[in-house]
C-alpha cells in the first residue's frame, strides 16, 4: 500500500471515529487514575482492574447469554478488585505501589488460569459466544456527512466516557466529597484538623477509580472486540496514568491527553498496512507516551524554576522595602 493511501486513511472520518473508539479504553481508566492521584494514592493497578473486568464481563455474558449481566458483573469484579488494593494499602499499611503491582500480576495470571479452566483455551475466549454492548445512532447528527461518521454509531462506552468525564469534573470541583478528596491528597494533616476522615475518603476514591477502570476494561472485551484476549489491556492502565500527568491532573486535560495517546494508537493501526516492520509501528503509542512525558517534565521544571525565581525576587524586594520603613 502506498503512503498516499495511508495519508488518505488518516485524514478521513473513519480514522477520527476510530480515534474516539480507541481512546475510550484510555479515557475511562485515566479518569480513575486522576481521582486517586488527586486523593494522594497512586492506583497502579488500573491495568489489572481493567483486565479482571474485561474477563469477567465476557465470561458472565457468555454463560448467561445476557450482555447487561456481563457488564454488571464486570463492574462488580473491578470494584471488588480495587477494594482489595484499598484494604491492603489503607488498612494493612502495604506500600500502594507494591500492592498494586502484585494485583496486576495476579490479574494477568489469574485471568489466563480461569480462562483455561472455563473454556479450555489459554489465549482467547473466542470459543465462547459472549455479548457485545449496543451502539447508538444519534438522530440528526448521524445524517450529517463526515460529522455523522465521526460522532454517531459508537458503542455506549464511548459516549459514557465523555459523560463520566463531565461528572468527574463536577464531582471534583463542585461537591463536598470532591473538595475533601483534593484536600486529603494535598495535605492530609490539614484535612484531618478540620475533621475530614482521610482513610474513608481515600477508600471511596479507590473504589470509584475501580469502577471507571472496569468500564475501560469492558469497553475492550465487550465493545471494541467481542472476546477476551490474554493481557488484552496491553499497558493501557499505565498509559492512562501517564495521561493524568500529561493532562496536568485536570479532568478535561486528562481526557485530551488520553485522546492524544488514542491518536498514536490509531495511527499505528493505519501504518500497519505500510511496508514497515510491524514491531516498530506497534511501538508508536508507547514511544509517544515517553516523549510526551519528557516534554511535559521539562516544561514543568522550567515553569517551576521561573516561579521560584519570581517569588524570591519579590520577597527580597519586599523585605528590603520594609527594612527602610
Amino acid at each position, binding site marked *: 500500500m502506498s503512503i498516499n493511501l495511508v495519508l488518505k486513511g488518516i485524514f478521513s472520518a473513519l480514522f477520527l471515529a476510530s480515534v474516539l473508539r480507541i481512546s475510550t479504553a484510555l479515557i475511562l481508566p485515566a479518569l480513575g487514575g486522576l481521582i486517586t492521584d488527586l486523593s494522594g494514592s497512586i492506583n497502579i493497578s488500573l491495568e489489572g482492574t481493567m483486565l479482571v473486568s474485561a474477563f469477567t464481563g465476557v465470561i458472565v455474558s457468555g454463560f448467561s447469554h445476557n450482555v447487561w449481566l456481563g457488564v454488571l458483573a464486570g463492574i462488580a469484579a473491578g470494584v471488588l478488585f480495587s477494594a482489595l488494593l484499598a484494604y491492603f494499602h489503607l488498612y494493612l499499611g502495604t506500600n500502594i505501589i507494591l500492592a498494586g503491582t502484585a494485583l496486576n500480576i495476579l490479574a494477568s495470571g489469574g485471568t489466563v488460569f480461569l480462562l483455561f479452566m472455563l473454556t479450555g483455551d489459554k489465549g482467547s475466549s473466542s470459543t465462547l459466544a459472549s455479548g457485545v454492548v449496543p451502539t447508538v445512532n444519534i438522530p440528526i447528527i448521524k445524517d450529517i456527512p463526515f460529522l455523522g461518521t465521526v460522532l454517531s454509531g459508537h458503542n455506549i462506552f464511548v459516549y459514557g466516557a465523555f459523560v463520566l468525564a463531565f461528572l468527574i469534573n463536577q464531582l471534583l470541583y*463542585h*461537591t*463536598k466529597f470532591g*473538595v*475533601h478528596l*483534593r*484536600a486529603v491528597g*494535598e*495535605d492530609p*494533616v*490539614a*484535612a484531618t*484538623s*478540620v*475533621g*475530614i476522615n482521610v482513610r474513608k475518603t481515600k477508600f471511596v476514591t479507590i473504589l470509584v477509580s475501580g469502577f471507571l477502570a472496569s468500564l475501560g476494561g469492558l469497553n475492550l472485551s465487550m465493545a471494541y472486540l467481542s472476546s477476551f484476549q490474554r493481557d488484552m489491556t496491553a499497558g493501557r492502565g499505565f498509559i492512562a496514568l501517564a495521561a493524568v500527568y500529561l493532562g496536568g491532573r485536570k479532568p478535561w486535560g486528562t481526557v485530551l491527553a488520553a485522546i492524544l495517546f488514542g491518536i498514536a494508537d490509531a495511527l499505528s493501526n493505519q501504518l500497519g498496512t505500510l511496508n514497515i516492520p510491524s514491531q516498530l509501528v506497534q511501538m508508536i503509542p508507547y514511544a509517544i507516551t515517553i516523549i510526551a512525558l519528557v516534554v511535559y517534565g521539562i516544561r514543568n521544571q522550567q515553569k517551576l524554576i521561573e516561579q521560584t525565581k519570581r517569588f*524570591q525576587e*519579590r*520577597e*527580597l524586594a*519586599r*523585605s528590603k522595602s*520594609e*527594612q527602610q*520603613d
Partner: protein
Amino acid sequence: MAPLVEMHNIVKIYSNGVVANNGVDFQLEKGEIHAIVGENGAGKTTLMKILYGSEQPTSGEILINGEPVVFKSPVDAMKKGVGMVHQNFMQIPSFTAAENVVLGHEPAKGVRLDKKKAIEVTKELSEQYGLFVEPTAITETINVGMRQRIEILKILYLGVEILIFDEPTAVLTPQETKDLFKAVRVLIEKGKTIVFITHKLREVKEISDRVTVMRNGKIMGTMKTADATKEGLARMMVGREVFLDIHKPAMKRGEKVMSVQDLSYVSETGRTMLRDLSFNLYAGEILGVAGVEGNGQTELVEVLTGLRVPASGRAVVDEIEVTGKTPREVRQAGVAHIPEDRLSNGLSLASSIDDNLIVDRFDKPPFKKGLVIDQKVVENNGKKLIKEFSILTPNGELPVSSLSGGNMQKVVVAREFSSDPKILIAAQPTRGIDVGATEFIRDQLVKKRTDGAAVLLVSADLSEVMSLSDRIITMFEGEITGVFPNASKVGEEELGYYMLGVKRQTAEEMEAML
C-alpha cells in the same frame, strides 16, 4: 465568677519519659489576652495542645465554664469553643482563601457546593473582625500574613470563643505583626478570649492583659502585665538551679581560623533570618551562641556549613571563601558539623554504624582501594571509634537505627571528631540524649578545643553554653545583640536580657570583641 477555663494539676509525661507538664494550674478569664511565656521546652505548647485536644493529659482536669470536659481530638475542643491558630498553617495550597476557611464544613445546596456562600461568609467574617483576606485568591500565592488571617477566620467560622495563638509572630514581618495585633484587639472587642504563646517579652508587654511564666514544665507565676517588668519576666524564664561542673583547662587562644563578614539570609518565605552578622572564630576557643530558638541560629549554622546559600556576606576559612560552596567543599576546608537534626541530617538510619562513620571519607585512602571500598579497613575503623567514643553496640554492622538517641549522637560525634577538623560547628549537640552521653560529648568538645580546634557551639540549653564556652555571643531576631569575651564572668540573667532583646550592645561596643 468562675474563670472561663480552669486547668487543674495537669501532668503530661510523653511516652519517651519526658515530663512536659508537671502539675500545672492555669486559669483563663473571659475576654482577656493571656500571654504564656517560657523558653523552648518549658511546656507551654504542650499545655495548650492539651487545652485544644491534640494531646491528652496523663492526669489532671479541664473545666470550661465550670463544667468538666474531656477532649479526645481538636474536633472535640472546637465543639466546646476552643481553637488553635497553628504556626504551620493547616491549609490546602491550591485552594482559594474562602475554600480553606470553610474546609470540612462547606456550605452546600443539595450535593452541589455553594461557592458564592463560602465567599460571602469569608467576606463577612473578614469585615466583622478586621482580618482582611482576598476570598478568591489561591492560598499558595498569598503572603504569610494573609495566610495567618485565613487560619484565624477558619476557626472563627466554626464559632470558637477561645483562640490559642502559638507563637504567631514567629513567621511575620514587623508590619504584619502590627496588623495582627490590631486584629487581636478587635477579637477581644467582639467578646473572644485569647491565649498568646510567645517568648518575645516586647510582645507580652504590648498586647497582653495577664502573663503566665512557665519553666521546666511548671508555672512560675501569673501576674497582670502592667505589674510585670521585662527584666522580672526574663529572670523568671531563664533562672536556673544547677550549674554543670565541667573540667576545663585555661584557654590557649590561637590564630583566627574563620571570619564571618556581614552575613545575611532570607528564608523561602521572605523572612530575614540573619541580618549583617559578623564575627571571628579563633583556634583553641569555644565560641558559644546563646539565644532562644528561632532567632537565626539554625540558619547561621546551615549557611556556614554549605547547606544554605546566604543572601549576602561571606564566611572565610583560611582565606578560602566557604559561603556558597557545597557541604563537601566546606568539609574539605576543615569544617566539621554536628547537625541539630541528627535523624535526618546527621545519620543514615538504615545504614550500619561502620558505614555512617566513613560517609565523609569513603572516597579517600585507606578506605578506598582501587575502585572499591576496603571493608576490612572500614570495619577496623568502626571498631576503633566504637571503643574510643564508647558507643554501646555489640558490633558495627548493626544499623544506626538500632541505637538509642545518645549513642546515635555519639556516632555523629565520633565521625566529626575523627575527621580532625580545624573548625567544629556543633548545633544542639546534646539535645534529647541521656545524661551519660551528654557528659561524654561535652567533655569531648572541651578536649577538642584544648587540642587547638575552634569550636562554634550553638545550643538552646543556656547552662550548656555558659559552662562550655570561652566567649559567648547572643542572637536575637537574626542579629548579634551582645558579645561576652569572658564567658565565666557573665550571669545568666544578664545573658537572658540580651537573648530576649531587652538589652543590646552597640556596634562600637561589640566590634573589638567579635
